[in-house]
């Protein structure tokens, strides 16, 4: 509980008056619909980000910087509560930044709403509740393509090729799938926007090893098509294996950063964050 008095429902579960199903938690920042001129630099960068939840909440990020180049994979690791998910949300504009800015392809998008960022080519798969459970798999994918006005049949075909199980279950409600299958729907949905950057928050949490390997493979494949990938992972070793760049977040600030291999080789990092 965040201590927000407006969110205090006193444990009420009365089905005849309230429907907590699928209620949002994200507080969208930003007001504009167009990016501002920015500067040069990496393809996507959250620079010196400082901020927290709500208007008055404490800062959770403290001058944290995260960047990813075109077609590369960047991985964020760190202890629980370090602010990894928060950093992702900040990059996606679901959090008010008190300092710092976010640049995409050289344009300043700090003031954009999340919807607008989707239009500018960002895709995001949250850590939890990342599918529309009451809609069919196909409708989930359609919703991924919500902002597109062109024909998205082809992209959908590609997603089905990437995740064949989804084609089988296309007319089934996504809520009836198992954890791993849901994860695939979630990534598929994000791919439907044809993003330039795909942001994944712990895509492999609760996924069996076989699916995890599969997912990592797919992620590499996606990256090869020129899409930049920014992801948070607790399966840090496998993730850093495939990462071009790695960040270790500690208490909302950059702890270590470097290429995936560097971090794996760093004894400090191994001991403190990768479990030896």
């Amino acid at each position, binding site marked *: 509980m965040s201590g927000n008095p407006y969110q205090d429902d006193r444990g009420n579960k009365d089905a005849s008056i309230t429907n907590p199903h699928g209620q949002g938690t994200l507080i969208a920042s930003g007001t504009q619909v167009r990016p501002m001129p920015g500067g040069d630099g990496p393809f996507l960068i959250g620079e010196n980000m400082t901020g927290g939840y709500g208007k008055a909440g404490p800062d959770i990020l403290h001058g944290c910087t995260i960047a990813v180049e075109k077609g590369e994979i960047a991985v964020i690791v760190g*202890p*629980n509560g370090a602010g990894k998910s928060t950093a992702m949300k900040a990059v996606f504009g679901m959090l008010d930044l008190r300092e710092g800015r976010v640049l995409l392809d050289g344009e300043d998008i700090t003031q954009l709403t999340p919807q607008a960022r989707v239009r500018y080519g960002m895709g995001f798969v949250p850590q939890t509740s990342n599918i529309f459970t009451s809609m069919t798999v196909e409708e989930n994918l359609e919703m991924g393509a919500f902002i597109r006005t062109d024909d998205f049949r082809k992209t959908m075909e590609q997603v089905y090729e990437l995740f064949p199980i989804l084609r089988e279950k296309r007319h089934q409600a996504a809520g009836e799938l198992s954890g791993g299958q849901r994860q695939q729907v979630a990534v598929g949905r994000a791919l439907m926007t044809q993003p330039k950057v795909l942001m994944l928050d712990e895509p492999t949490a609760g996924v069996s090893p*076989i*699916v995890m390997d599969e997912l990592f493979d797919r992620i590499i494949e996606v990256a090869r098509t020129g899409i930049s990938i920014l992801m948070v992972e607790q399966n840090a070793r496998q993730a850093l294996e495939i990462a071009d760049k790695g960040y270790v977040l500690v208490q909302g600030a950059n702890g270590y950063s470097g290429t995936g291999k560097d971090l794996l080789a760093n004894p400090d990092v191994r001991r403190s964050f990768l479990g030896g």
Partner: protein
Amino acid sequence: MIEVKNLHRHFGGFRAVDGASLEIETGSITGLVGPNGAGKTTLFNVVAGVLPPTSGQVFMAGEDITGLPPHTLFHKGLLRTFQIAHEFSSMSCRENLMMVPGGQTGETLWNTWFGRKRIADEERALRAKADEVLEFLTIEHLADHKAGQVSGGQKKLLELGRTMMVDARIVFLDEVGAGVNRTLLNTIGDAIIRLNKERGYTFCMIEHDMDFIGRLCDPVIVMAEGKVLSKGTIDEIKADERVIEAYLGTGLKNKEAVG
């Protein structure tokens, strides 16, 4: 300790648990693994009384406990933790622990009015015990923090701590490892082993992290498509062709080569 006999749980036409039978020996730390959608969580929910079974029975130490509600099972010594920590967020960590023991004098309304003295004594004892547990979990400094405001891993420790407030006989752990930092996970693993050794708790845990399973569990039960696929030590499981095909995959070998 727990015996599941030919258990079924269907959702509409879908058979999430489809005739699973398994036993959890007293004093063991049993691992439960299996591909996504194998029905592990569903099985857990049925055993813990959250979902009623479609058919089949569950026994605990020879007693039929099929379909009993969670709170009754708790008093029989069957406890569970949650995959996503379910702390009492507006209460302090200490209170989170103090509320656990059942049958407290002060939980009866009448006594809150006319049994103040007895309650006070009991509370003192409870408080001491809670502090002890917090110390065991190395989070004694958080005793007065609101549980909603501690970190995710600490919440998971708190979950475990609750099982220590009473004499649990069997504890079900649902993916304690998912989303937990590996360093912290090791701490939790240690705690589990100590509880098992020192207090004689029986554990049954769902987990996907084979290293973690390997370190703690013996035996390991593998589920697939609602049925029990195989059961054995971690090495037996890792060698089992059916398990590799259905769950582990061949990728495992590469990974080990890397790690």
